[in-house]
């Protein structure tokens, strides 16, 4: 009876719904601490639905690709064997090069960078809303995943964990408009802040006097205590003169977010950066900038990280550092 009466008064129901939503929004906007329980509960329940949907889609895809792959499989097998042999030779070359690099590093007396522990996770769902750039992974609290853990892929930094349930977690991608990371230009150690723009990245707060060139590698600075230092974010695509005394730098992400299938969650707690370390870093940057002003530029094959008392390795990013698979 009541429902019949309500359906005859749509404006009243509409007004009630609007008021409820406004109250709900106001409650969240004014609250700064914690995540709403409804968000955690809904996410936990729905992540199971997402897992089921992805499993179904995967199985359909698996049957299809399995059937298609059966054709010409012998020819493909031969080609793969040839590829394997080539790769084995290349692997040996890489090992030799790695050994040489290790020797050089020891000779230079550089501090060995501590390795990070990671947990491999599969992406089971993308963003529920088109305006947000987040995704769901199939590892959660029981796997040791916690909020604000960094998420990386072999190509570079992916984002951070924003919400966990026991068996799943939500990851905010670095390209999300609300995402940001402490960053620096690897070549000159000029520091700044990388913020997401939906599809690309923008580096802000880089002093206008800093030496930045198109194609420079942008890596994490570690100052945000979320992303480990030295992981690849992207490359400088364009440099614009921003407002005030800062550069506005467009950064091309190194990760292709549309092709991500598996990621690694960094579970190693990051050491807190002390004010002394920050001061040392700033001093080193200042010294280098003074040297650049007094000396002619010598960009050929410069060893990255030699200008800083806390140097990042030449390629410390995920290409080399974190192991694939479960945490070591």
């Amino acid at each position: 009876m009541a429902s019949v009466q309500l359906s005859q008064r749509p404006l009243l129901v509409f007004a009630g719904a609007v008021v409820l939503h406004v109250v709900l929004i106001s409650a969240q906007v004014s609250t700064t601490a914690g995540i709403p329980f409804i968000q955690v509960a809904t996410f936990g329940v729905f992540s199971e639905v997402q897992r089921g949907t992805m499993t179904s889609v995967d199985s359909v895809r698996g049957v299809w690709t399995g059937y298609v792959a059966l054709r010409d499989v012998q020819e493909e097998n031969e080609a793969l064997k040839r590829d394997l042999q080539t790769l084995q030779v290349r692997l040996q070359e890489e090992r030799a090069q790695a050994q040489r690099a290790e020797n050089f590093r020891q000779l230079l007396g550089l501090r060995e960078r501590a390795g990070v522990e990671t947990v491999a996770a599969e992406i089971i769902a993308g963003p529920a809303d088109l305006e947000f750039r987040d995704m769901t992974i199939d590892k959660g609290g029981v796997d040791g995943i916690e909020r604000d853990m960094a998420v990386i892929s072999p190509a570079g930094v992916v984002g951070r964990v924003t919400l966990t349930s026991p068996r799943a977690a939500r990851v905010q991608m670095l390209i999300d408009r609300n995402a940001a990371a402490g960053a620096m230009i690897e070549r000159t150690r000029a520091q700044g802040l990388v913020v997401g723009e939906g599809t690309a990245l923008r580096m802000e707060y880089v002093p206008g006097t800093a030496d930045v060139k198109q194609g420079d590698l942008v890596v994490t600075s570690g100052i945000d205590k979320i992303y480990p230092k030295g992981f690849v974010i992207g490359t400088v695509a364009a440099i614009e003169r921003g407002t005030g005394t800062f550069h506005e730098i467009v950064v091309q992400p190194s990760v292709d977010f549309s092709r991500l299938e598996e990621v690694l969650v960094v579970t190693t707690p990051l050491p807190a950066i002390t004010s002394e370390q920050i001061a040392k870093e700033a001093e080193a940057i200042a010294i280098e900038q003074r040297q650049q002003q007094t000396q002619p530029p010598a960009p050929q094959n410069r060893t990255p990280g030699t200008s800083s008392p806390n140097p990042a390795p030449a390629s410390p990013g995920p290409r080399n550092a974190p192991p694939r698979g479960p945490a070591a």
Partner: protein
Amino acid sequence: MKVVTSLLAIAVALALQTTLASLVIRGTAALDLVLIVVVYLALISGPVTGLLLGSAAGLVQDALSSGVIGIGGLAKTVVGFMAGLLGTQFIVTAPLSRFVVFLLATVLHASVFMGLYTLLGLRQFDDPWASVLTQAVGNGFLGVVGAQVVELLPGLRDRRKARRMTRH
């Protein structure tokens, strides 16, 4: 029964939305399946059902996103209500008129959604209208095709049954 079917349709749309979006994340996921389902159900069920379904769908979508819970809910509530009103005041069964409704609904949804975020100072949207229009056209096409399919299916089944009966 109708309520359960409607909620199920929204859940399926949401699951499909997130699954497909995980395959095409970077700016190319120009369809809002949940919005399409809400608008279609509002058109055939009226403003109250439309706003309630929009509200539920939007809140779940908000809870699954990293945004403020309620903004998407409010946007879909408004869209559900308006689409329901249109459905009761006008005859919206022709493909062209449905296309216009889906298109306008997407623009209205984006306006409320982005307007609220901008008003609260939580997000900035740099010149979003090109992507909104693309999404509106995409939603329009899919909405029209989806609606035709949904409405044709029961008829097909009945005709097939009738044909079998006449053979025997």
